[in-house]
């Protein structure tokens, strides 16, 4: 059954009817309406005539063979440009690199050799930089670790000047200032001392500890009191010393824990050897740090 359609409703659908965009039921309903409504039929006819006029007057209807040949020339140019752009594109250039396989295997071998060399150099570097357990550096580090573990009260936090960090190769070690007391009170005998200390950001010695001492004269009875005095004097000199504080990578002053290894060595000439100078050269302490 075809639904009845009034003029108002039909007028809303006339455009869709002319353009063939209505559903089938609406299309049939409008057709039925147009059979008896002359006004709507005339409107449909108007719309169709306007469309026909547009198609007739469209400039493109007058396209000439000359236009087409010009168009063909232009499109040929387009294809040439597109081909050139395509040839210059990255995927094509990468693909071209692998066209000649003669170069692929040498390149692959060279790359493998380079990678192998890099790994070998890295392994050698790691092996060389690993601390020998018997080395002085390792010993100093172990002593520093033991000293820090014995004094946990100094771990006060990063904002404290008493928070020591481990001194490493990238940092600038604290240097003694010239106006500070010299470490000239070392015992005269052959001796080695390991001294742990914390140098604050202000350049003061905040904490110190004698870690280890080896001395020939210790074994001699009756001299232990004198030895204690000498060590105390040395520690007092260290305590009074002033340093230029250690500097981190960014140049900021940092509090560091250092271990000094002080050694006094006496070189004795062999019998019959002629001394180079009349006076015996003064012994010089050696400082080691970690």
């Amino acid at each position, binding site marked *: 059954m075809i639904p009845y359609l009034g003029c108002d409703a039909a007028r809303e659908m006339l*455009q*869709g009817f002319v*353009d063939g*965009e209505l559903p089938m039921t609406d299309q049939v309903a409008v057709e039925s309406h147009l059979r008896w409504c002359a*006004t709507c039929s*005339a*409107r449909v*006819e*108007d*719309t*169709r*005539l*306007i*469309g*026909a*006029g*547009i*198609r*007739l*007057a*469209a*400039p*493109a209807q007058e*396209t000439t063979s000359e*236009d*087409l040949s*010009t*168009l*063909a020339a*232009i*499109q040929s*140019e*387009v*294809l040439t*440009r*597109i*081909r050139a*752009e*395509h040839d210059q594109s990255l995927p*094509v250039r990468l693909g071209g690199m692998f066209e000649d396989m003669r170069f692929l295997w040498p390149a692959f071998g060279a790359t493998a050799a380079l990678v192998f060399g890099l790994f070998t150099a890295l392994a050698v570097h790691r092996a060389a930089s690993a601390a020998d357990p018997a080395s002085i550096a390792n010993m100093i580090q172990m002593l520093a670790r033991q000293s820090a573990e014995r004094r946990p009260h100094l771990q006060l936090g990063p904002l404290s000047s008493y928070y020591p960090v481990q001194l490493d190769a990238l940092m600038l070690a604290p240097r003694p200032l010239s106006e500070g007391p010299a470490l000239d009170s070392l015992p005269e005998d052959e001796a080695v001392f390991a001294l742990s200390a914390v140098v604050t950001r202000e350049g003061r010695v905040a904490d110190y500890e004698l870690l280890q001492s080896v001395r020939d004269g210790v074994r001699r009875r009756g001299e232990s009191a004198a030895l204690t005095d000498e060590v105390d004097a040395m520690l007092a000199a260290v305590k009074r010393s002033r340093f230029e504080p250690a500097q981190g990578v960014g140049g900021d002053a940092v509090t560091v824990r250092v271990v000094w290894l002080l050694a006094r060595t006496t070189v004795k000439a062999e019998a019959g050897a002629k001394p180079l100078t009349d006076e015996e050269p003064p012994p010089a302490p050696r400082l080691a740090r970690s």
Partner: protein
Amino acid sequence: MQAGFSGELVKNAGAISWSDVDTREAALIERCTAGDDLACAELVAAHQRMVYGLAFNLLGDRDEALDVSQEVFLRVFRTLSSFRGQSALRTWIYRIVVNQVRNRQRWWRRRRRSDLVSLDDHLRQCGDVESKRDVLPDRLLASKETAARIWDALERLPFDQRTALILREVDGLRYEEIAFSLDVAVGTVKSRLTRARQALRAELLGLRP
């Protein structure tokens, strides 16, 4: 003469099976993106008249239309890899044409602003179309001169209305395809077509003796 104004000139966009076109187009696009020169030439040959025709109809200038055709195909090939089959290839190319022409029209509009007449002014001069019960006499369209006057009236319409009407009447696109080409909703296409046809009808009613 009346026979010349029949709907035969309208290309029937739905006459081809879309599934067949999709398969064929997909293969063609794949070959083009792979750099196949023959495929590129085939794509150009299949669409160049359509591109040129639409550009010519929208711009009304032969040289401009040729320039736009070149730009359109350059853009087609540069962006073909991004085409995901969201529409038929033809509709996608229509969209590029419309955008290229719109860019040129913006420049033209700045130069010819004084020549343009708004639709409201136009309707005010011609009166309310709906109030007139007159029907266009067939004889008014029985000459090319009348068709030319229709085209002149069409050229005075806003770009979006004019484009929608040309895509519908000359290129035979369906509402959905026009909507994709203009990047608007289907309802917007319908309203633009309605307003454009009203304006042209008002123009033709003014031709009555």
